[in-house]
């Protein structure tokens, strides 16, 4: 792999950009691999990268039914933060945050990680008590967090409606300064290029249609490009997890829901941070291109259509206009949906399964983009050693049997 650098920009410009190397190969699938990753989203690609980098397992295939990053990785609103309430979750997301902080250098690919801060607003006394509790819990876990007042918010975000006459007045917020946003596509491409350079085969347009299990052991997969053998299979398919589980006769505590997001027409810089409100339920940031990036909640019903319902669009924009009345004149440009895999306790499953050699990484729901590097890191370790790292041990499938749920519903402000 030729490294990207300022010098390489100049050299390629002189050549009218005709000799850039393709970022990853498109190999034909081999008959067998030491490990197979099903799903070429950010999490699957990161898993393959860390398998190759940290565990010496380089004969790896990533099988993607469409194109890499075409699932939730390329559809999300890119908020990255680690201010979760419960210790198990906070430590897992914080591991990811630490990996984000060096990721562009590590991958030699600019993932445009921008630590512009994330504000979680409080609109009631109870919101403020929850915020103080969460901020204190974060600090005890070594995670940066602070409580800010309405006056602080008014100074930092002039366009935010901090008036006491608002229908849902803002009483304060939590702020994580190290939090922010990143460029979603670049995360998929960066991990793909770096994994490919270590020998990983990235195979697009290859849908897994069956999982071969013999005597309680996974031995390979059926795909639209033929059978591929491996005794180590990691499934990382977000909203499609239940379908893949069914191929191995497993049942999961997961339901798939549409989650939508939209962007406005590009406007001049107006918002240099991320604002989220769990109470009026909406969140917003501004992309480097100038678009307002907006999202809110899932559709309540199960759904696999990559589009959302109209009532949710209306509700989301009501929330945004409540927070930023001036944005009422901004036109929306595009909207789309992804399929999110929602767990009963709003925490992921990164786990071994009752089938030997079959591992599942799912249930990240509305908030897994932030954990892309950390999820790959712990899942690679779990697949390589056939046992979880201490960071993901609490996120096992068995927790639904033992009752050791990690209830982040509502606890961590709003999801995403």
């Amino acid at each position, binding site marked *: 792999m030729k490294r990207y650098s300022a010098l390489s920009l100049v050299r390629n410009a002189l050549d009218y950009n005709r000799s850039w190397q393709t970022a990853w190969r498109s190999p034909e699938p081999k008959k067998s691999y030491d490990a197979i990753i099903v799903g070429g989203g950010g999490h699957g690609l990161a898993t393959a990268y860390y398998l190759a980098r940290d565990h010496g397992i380089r004969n790896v295939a990533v099988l993607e039914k469409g194109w890499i990053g075409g699932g939730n990785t390329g559809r999300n609103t890119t908020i990255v933060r680690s201010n979760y309430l419960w210790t198990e979750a906070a430590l897992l997301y914080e591991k990811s945050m630490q990996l984000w902080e060096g990721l562009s250098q590590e991958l030699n690919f600019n993932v445009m990680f921008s630590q512009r801060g994330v504000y979680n607003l409080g609109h009631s006394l109870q919101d403020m008590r929850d915020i103080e509790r969460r901020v204190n819990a974060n600090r005890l876990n070594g995670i940066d967090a602070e409580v800010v007042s309405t006056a602080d918010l008014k100074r930092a975000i002039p366009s935010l409606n901090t008036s006491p006459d608002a229908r849902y007045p803002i009483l304060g917020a939590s702020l994580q300064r190290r939090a922010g946003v990143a460029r979603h596509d670049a995360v998929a491409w960066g991990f793909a290029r770096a994994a490919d350079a270590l020998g990983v085969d990235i195979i697009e347009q290859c849908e897994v249609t069956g999982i071969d299990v013999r005597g309680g052991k996974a031995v390979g997969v059926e795909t639209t490009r033929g059978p591929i053998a491996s005794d180590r299979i990691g499934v990382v398919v977000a909203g*499609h997890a239940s379908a893949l589980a069914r191929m191995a006769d497993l049942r999961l505590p997961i339901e798939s829901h549409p989650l939508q997001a939209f962007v406005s027409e590009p406007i001049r810089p107006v918002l240099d941070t991320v604002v989220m409100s769990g109470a009026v339920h909406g969140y917003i940031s501004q992309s480097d291109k100038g678009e307002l990036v907006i999202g809110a909640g899932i559709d309540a019903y*199960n759904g696999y259509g990559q589009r959302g319902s109209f009532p949710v669009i209306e509700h989301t924009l009501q929330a945004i206009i409540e927070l930023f009345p001036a944005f009422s004149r901004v036109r929306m440009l595009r909207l789309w949906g992804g399929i999110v895999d929602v767990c009963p306790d709003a925490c992921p499953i990164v786990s071994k399964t009752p089938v030997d050699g079959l591992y599942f990484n799912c249930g990240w729901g509305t908030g897994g983009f932030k954990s892309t590097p950390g999820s790959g890191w712990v899942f690679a370790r779990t697949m390589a050693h056939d046992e979880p790292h201490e960071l993901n041990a609490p996120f096992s499938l068995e927790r639904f049997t033992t009752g050791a749920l990690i209830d982040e519903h509502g606890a961590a402000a709003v999801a995403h």
Partner: protein
Amino acid sequence: MLLIDCPWCGSRAETEFSYGGEAGIVRPADPDALSDAEWADYLFNRTNPRGAHRELWNHAQGCRRWFGVERDTVTYRIARSFTLPDAAGAADGGVERDFETGDPTDAEPGDRR
């Protein structure tokens, strides 16, 4: 916007309803007799199919009654609504009726999967 047929009030906008998840999950009669895994399966595991899904809806801003809907989770097309059996699975509540024709359907009461 989904148009959902309430068996009692007729066709109404999605926003009048609240969603109750997969239909036909029956609370085990004797939870103490179950293993932890069986209890967890009842509590948490869901079929979550791509395609036909039998699910519960409540007409929250109307008659406030629960009923079932068969809907495709990919196209979102609604095939039909049906009433639920009562606790004993008997009497009129036990008869599934096609919403449009009002005729009893051939589904067995209580057989919701």
